[in-house]
């Protein structure tokens, strides 16, 4: 049991971040806090991808003359990292759009509280 927890600590960390993010998205009333929750949620998935690429005693994916290319366990897997560069860019773009919308909402209604907004729209 202890082995199961300590052996997968990266995944437990990811999972707890995922839950924190989801909590922010669902339960926070302030829209900016929802965006923060969303950013945490995305970051947890990014960290998950980064953690699955890591190996003990492995080096970066640049050919080292001392390590033959066939010895794949000595090199990190570069693909998840490159994927996550794209995912981070997507996340930044999402935050940009979200904050633009927030500015538009604040200019129109003068509040960012979800309940107040719902009452004003009704």
């Amino acid at each position, binding site marked *: 049991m202890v082995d199961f927890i300590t052996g997968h600590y990266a995944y437990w960390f990811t999972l707890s971040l995922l839950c924190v993010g989801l909590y922010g998205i669902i339960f926070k009333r302030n829209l900016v806090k929802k965006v923060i929750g969303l950013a945490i949620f995305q970051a947890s998935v990014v960290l998950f991808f980064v953690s699955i690429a890591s190996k003990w005693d492995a080096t970066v994916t640049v050919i080292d003359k001392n390590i033959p290319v066939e010895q794949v366990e000595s090199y990190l897997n570069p693909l998840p990292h490159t994927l996550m560069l794209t995912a981070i860019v997507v996340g930044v773009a*999402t935050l940009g759009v979200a904050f633009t919308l927030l500015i538009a909402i604040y200019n*129109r209604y003068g509040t960012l509280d979800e309940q107040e907004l719902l009452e004003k729209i009704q």
Partner: protein
Amino acid sequence: MIETHLPAIIALTFVLFALLIPLFGLWKEQLCQPLAVLGSGLATTFSLLAFITYLQTGSIRYFFGGWEPPIGIEFVYDGLSGFILIVINSVAFLALIYAKKPGRMEFQGKELAYYALAMLMMLGFNGMVLTGDLFNLYVFLEISSLSSYALISIGNKPAPFAAFRYLIVGTAGGTLYLLGVGFLYTNTGTLNIIDMSAMLPMLVDNSSVVTALILMVVGIGVKAAIFPLHGWLPDSYTYASTPSSTLIAPIGTKVAAYILFRIMLYLFGIDLTDAVFPLSYIVGVFACIGIIYGSVMAIAQTEMKRMLAYSSVSQIGYIIMGLSLANPFGFAGALLHVLNHAVMKACLFMITGNLRYKEGHSNISLFNDSYRIKYPWTMASFSVAAISMVGLPPLAGFFSKWYLVLGTIDNSNWIFLAVIIVSSLLNAVYFFRILEKVYMKNPDAEQQPDTAVEIKYDDVSPSMMSPMAILAVGLFVIGFANAAIVGFLLGIFPM
């Protein structure tokens, strides 16, 4: 040999026009809309050309940079993606023709941004349909989603709030999908759909593969607005401007439904999807609840646009139900319904747009019998689309429901059959009340001997009328050509 490059050309057309529109739009803003129409028209032509090539030589796989999968990235043009591409590109083409006048009225001065974003959104949709790589699919999903958030926020006062709520759930859904892709990647070491589908049968009893499937279905389910995840849809479609809702409503949820087809029937295969527990049946049950819920909520609405939005929730349920049946008739019925619903919803949103353009509102309780004299063509198209939504022959809507019914009978699934029939009746309730207001004289109203304002013909201009009329006529054409379409769809059933 241009044929082998067609999958890439279809998507690149939209990239090209997304760049051309700002360039020419800065010089003359009036050029934006014709350029957008030209772009989507070209893409439709290329889709049709690729479809002819597909019929002659089979599916086209385009390897980017000549790198073969699983190392490289590929675009796959097969029967299913070809069918969806033709549907979404041709409907977008008509919706962009229609957008000219309502666009000029509703967002004067922002046309450049609007049409450039519309092109980017279509790029995202086309990429999602064409790509053969799961991570690429995520990127295209986010391209289309980000542009559609922006497009929805161009509207009346609460539109940014509706778009923001869509952004929160949509991005959360996209992230769940990405997590599912991560699980699959750790198990198989590949992201290519064809490559992965060959490996997955070896991993049936792996719990992380099942988790990945559920994460992906939930994530895409948000985009497809399957019942418990549909909360963003009614507000977004109601508050968005007329051109945005005509463009997004017919195609947005369909593309997400197509991804569910890809994942459940092609990537996993129906045997693997149901290997651990009957996921397809559960999805089908949610679709059924969505069908009934959407129809009941649509009856309760007085605003026509909101009624159509709830009707969309109900109609997407038919498509997902056909997917969950996973037999040839259910598959063909669902895909025929993708086509029918795209045409019907585009037509109905255009009609709402016409009424808003002329009357300034689309409140059903204010509709009266003067509309049949003022807007004869709009109302005629409405009758056609409404009757097709209810599902009366020979209109298109009847045939998709017919094949779905055949599919439920094949599976001996009597609950689903009952849902289809009950919801058709509910559809009739909410569409015929409008027809009644427009075509039947209200017996309680006092007959005015001399009407102060003479009611005369005042229908919309050709640029708004022709796309609507083409779609309405298209419903007859699809109805009569259903045998050919269904024959093709039965041929591409992946089993």
